[in-house]
């Protein structure tokens, strides 16, 4: 019966949540019954919705594949993004101009559902295989790195549960190997979007297993939280956005190079390359002969940036 309830064992090593003493609970009338979850339909009066119900409806809408925008959109000129900032931050406009002048003229929007980082990396990770000079050799190399992560994943998560999510990634890699350049990037994107929730989740598990099994480089950047609770709440939770810790962890796990263009509203004067780009490149990166994965970061959101051809 030890460690039956993970929430209880967590409570012992994680900082305790603020607790109110039960004696401080306000007295309530005995006939007050809290609303049980109810069926909400178009006849439900809007003003009868509680904040919790509104939150639940919003969540549902964001999660509905029909109402959410395309998870990864078609190639769009970066001038479209510039137009959105013309009345806003001029610093962002100057950085977009810098990108444009240096050949970064296009991008793809990713849906804002909390998975934009993982889904964008997943797409670029696979698309680069298609662009590689020697596809079978590169696929084999990527596979070898993934295989080396099996042990860590098995240690971090019980019952090889990660295989349920990695399976889809391996299927796509097999597809790339089988079809080679006969598969276009758009074909690949269509195939990926059918299973991208699973592939993105596998990338979360990879990042989480990396932090859990090799915490040294990350520990000092995690404040007020144990590694376990950080991984559970900030990496493994489906909608949690990625900050630099899971980003570093994922690059280290996959041994890939990530070049991140950050659009900041605080750049003064002339824009330099260092103002725009941050490169995350593990020492043992296995993709040094491929163009890096390019993402465009605005606070709270990642899109996919296309580089000079």
């Amino acid at each position: 019966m030890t460690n039956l309830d993970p929430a209880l064992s967590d409570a012992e090593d994680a900082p305790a949540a603020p607790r109110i003493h039960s004696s401080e609970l306000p007295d309530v009338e005995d006939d007050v019954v809290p609303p049980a979850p109810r069926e909400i339909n178009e006849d439900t009066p809007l003003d009868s919705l509680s904040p919790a119900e509104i939150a639940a409806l919003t969540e549902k809408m964001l999660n509905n594949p029909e109402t959410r925008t395309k998870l990864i959109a078609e190639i769009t000129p970066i001038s479209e993004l510039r137009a959105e900032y013309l009345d806003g931050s001029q610093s962002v406009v100057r950085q977009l101009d810098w990108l444009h002048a240096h050949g970064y003229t296009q991008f793809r929007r990713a849906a804002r559902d909390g998975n934009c980082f993982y889904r964008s990396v997943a797409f670029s990770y696979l698309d680069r295989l298609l662009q590689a000079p020697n596809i079978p050799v590169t696929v084999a190399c990527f596979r070898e790195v993934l295989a080396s992560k099996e042990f860590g994943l098995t240690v971090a998560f019980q019952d090889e549960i990660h295989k349920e999510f990695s399976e889809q990634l391996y299927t796509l890699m097999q597809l790339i190997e089988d079809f080679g350049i006969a598969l276009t990037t758009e074909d690949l994107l269509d195939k990926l979007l059918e299973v991208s929730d699973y592939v993105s989740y596998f990338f979360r598990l990879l990042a989480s297993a990396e932090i859990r099994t090799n915490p040294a480089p990350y520990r000092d950047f995690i404040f007020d939280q144990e590694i376990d609770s950080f991984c559970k709440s900030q990496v493994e939770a489906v909608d949690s956005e990625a900050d630099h810790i899971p980003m570093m962890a994922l690059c280290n796990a996959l041994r890939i190079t990530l070049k991140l263009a950050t659009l900041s509203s605080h750049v003064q004067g002339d824009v330099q390359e260092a103002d725009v780009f941050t490169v995350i490149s593990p020492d043992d990166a296995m993709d040094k002969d491929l163009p890096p994965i390019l993402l465009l970061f605005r606070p709270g959101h990642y899109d996919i940036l296309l580089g000079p051809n």
Partner: protein
Amino acid sequence: MNSRSNVGAAKRLMTEYRQLVSGGSPDGMFTAGPISESDIFTWEALISGPQDTPFEGGVFAAKLTFPTDYPLSPFKMRFDPPLFHPNIYPDGTVCISILHTPGDDPTMYEQASERWSPVQSVEKVILSVISMLAEPNLESPASVDCSKLYRDNRPEYERRVRESIREQLGL
């Protein structure tokens, strides 16, 4: 994408069901499985009341309803008939942090507790619910009546729980 996710959900549920059938639950504390072969998305769980609690001796039936994108989203759990417990709504729906996603926090008291993630499972959730039966969480009361009674008059709370168990057993 819907159809593919659906396949993923059905596959996961089959795997979990198979593991529960072959391995059983720890100490035989519960059983769970689909109600009918035609619908893998609706399960029934039978949970025996934990020892040394007022629930001891009872066997409680709960319906588990899985979304088509399970395990990316959590399932719902509802005791039928409802259980008298601070964290169970009067209609029987269980309110426990592990069945909520991080963005979904009706009581706002659950920030530091364990949330749903796709690496959880039916087994882990039911074990958490069994712990919850033994130790109610007064920070997120779903039944205010019951929470109040639990806080103010523990012997009466325990008496009512035991009485409801006897009623369910037809004694």
